[in-house]
């Protein structure tokens, strides 16, 4: 069986090599480096903060300006009245969450609270890796509340993939609540993932925030 499988691979690769006429010993690094020079670049993203806010809003995110970090629990409570159970990012656990019951079980929590690893201005996108946030927390809750620090905002996707831990087994770009148009092309929010996506935006560029990891 293994022999048979490896010969399938070799047959396919031989046909590919015959078709592309690649030099047999070409290093992959040389392929990566053969990317054309960045001369025909897209128009620069001049005002990333406003671009992010504009794009995120049109993606269906609810944006909340957070004056400082300790305000977060109160701000979350006021935006999500009646919410009792919260599955929270452990990096935010040291804040005063006494108004909520915290849980690790994401499938029982209606609300998740997470810190974004990065934001992308170009498309109003939030970035997470499962080194810091469980994928299930992002997708199983009904409401997802995200803390975005403006110091982590990137202009474009290309800048972002250099800034995050892309070796993680899962990197998620989240750009709005879950939606579907599979019934008569009618957009319906809340398909399988969160029905609401709230983004709490904190400007930490002048006074950096640190988290207990």
């Amino acid at each position, binding site marked *: 069986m293994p022999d048979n499988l490896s010969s399938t691979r070799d047959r396919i690769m031989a046909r590919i090599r015959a078709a*592309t006429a690649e030099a047999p010993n070409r290093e992959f690094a040389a392929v990566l480096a053969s990317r054309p020079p960045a001369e025909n670049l897209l128009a620069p993203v001049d005002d990333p903060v406003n671009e992010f806010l504009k794009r995120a809003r049109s*993606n269906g995110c609810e944006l909340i300006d957070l004056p400082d970090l300790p305000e977060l629990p109160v701000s979350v409570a006021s935006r999500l009245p009646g919410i009792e159970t919260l599955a929270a990012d452990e990096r935010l656990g040291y804040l005063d969450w006494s108004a909520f019951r915290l849980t690790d079980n994401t499938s029982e929590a209606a609300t998740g609270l997470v810190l974004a690893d990065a934001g992308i201005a170009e498309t109003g996108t939030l970035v997470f890796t499962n080194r810091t946030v469980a994928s299930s927390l992002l997708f*199983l809750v009904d409401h997802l509340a995200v803390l975005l620090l403006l110091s982590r905002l990137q202009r474009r996707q290309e800048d972002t993939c250099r800034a995050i831990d*892309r070796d993680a087994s899962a990197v998620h770009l*989240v750009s709005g609540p*879950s939606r579907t*148009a599979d019934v008569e*092309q009618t957009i319906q929010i809340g398909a*399988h993932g969160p029905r609401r996506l709230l983004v709490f935006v904190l400007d930490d560029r002048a006074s950096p925030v640190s988290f207990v990891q």
Partner: protein
Amino acid sequence: MSGPQTFIARAGAALDDPQLQSALARARSGFVDKRASAIAAEPDFDLMRDQAREVRQRSLSNLAACLEEFEQQVTAAGGQVHWAESTEDLRRIVIDICLRAGAQTVTKGKSMVGEEAALNQALEQAGLTPWETDLGEYIIQLAHEPPSHIVAPALHKTRSQIADLFRNAHALGERDLGEVSALVDEARAVIRERFLSADVGITGANLLIAETGTAALVTNEGNGDLTARLPRTHIVTTSFDRVVPGWEDASKILRVLSRSATGQPITAYTSFFSGPRAQGEQDGPENFHVVLLDNHRTDLLASEFREMLHCIRCGACMNHCPVYQNVGGHAYDSVYPGPMGAVLSPLLRGYSQDDELPNASSFCGRCEEVCPVRIPLPGLMRKLRERETLEKKSSWLSRRLLAAFAVVARKPVLYRHLTSAGTRLLGAVGRRRGVLRTVPLASGWTRYRDLPAPQGASFQQRWAREEGTKAGDKHNA
């Protein structure tokens, strides 16, 4: 599906199906308008298309190097790459992984390669229970039908047909399913349980990234992520031509993909999966497999049809195709419908009846115009038509007609006489209304639309007249 055997018969049936026509009418404006407004909002869109096309070209000319790197990276991360020469290989590999994992239930995200290989039927025959999780795929699974669109598989279904399918499948008693929200909520509740209990999750991939051994997945519902991350085993079914060298190259493709598909600058979820859960990570599968299908793609790579492998599966060509818009996807009798399918289906499976598909086009050129990676679809269809004629597979009548046209077209005087006589005749008959309701021997056309009546002169006559006027203007100036 067992239905009429020819495209023409299937197209005729589609035109006579009022439910289908009402579903298609809705989709026509939906996709086209959404894409148009997304592109109007993006002044750099043409540059984005050039960049995406460059990535597809460079990826294919360095395909072996990219795939070697991809395989190495997946293996280094603790995953496994499998190679499937045929769809049969793919089915066998996937079933083998499921059985070795002791699986009974399988959640599935949308995978066109999975559809190409008819994976669901094979999983069922092996005693496994496949659960589609994408809403559109779930609807057609309940209807036991193939997809009719590569992005919106249940495009051909109306709301009331979907409500009937749900009543039949879910024993939930009396309830109101009149609203779209009620249907979506019901599917959400039913499928939620399945996400949490499935043994294996199978998804497709929109892209593979060589430098980190990554499968990228684009969805709006979030079903792909729940399928990929919750079960103990994640299997990606895709084809080797999806690979790009690096993350920055992936960005170039993603930028044009969702704008062209659904008119969104980006979909709600774009996720990148690299190997099983690693130490210190929060969650994820224990096993990660990528199955790469060939199924004649290596032949395409070596042929004059290589550009077809640039396709990023956005569906814009079918959304804008006047033929697809009127007959829907099932008329093509392939999981790949519309213009891209008319090129791909004959090349991937080569059924004798597939020769019809490249002929199901008026060559209006809209598909090429909207293709985000500028695939010359009409040109590729023309090459397939040429091949059909050279191999003498087209019908005796169409070859005789073409030969007769060739004779006339090479004799300008005869051509002029015949066309101006025809123009005068049709013009005289249709003068009163400006259109012709019926034309002898052309009921296939006039049954569904009027034939505009020529306005008294042939193109060459009008051209000569216009040129004469212009020359006169120049002379006067």
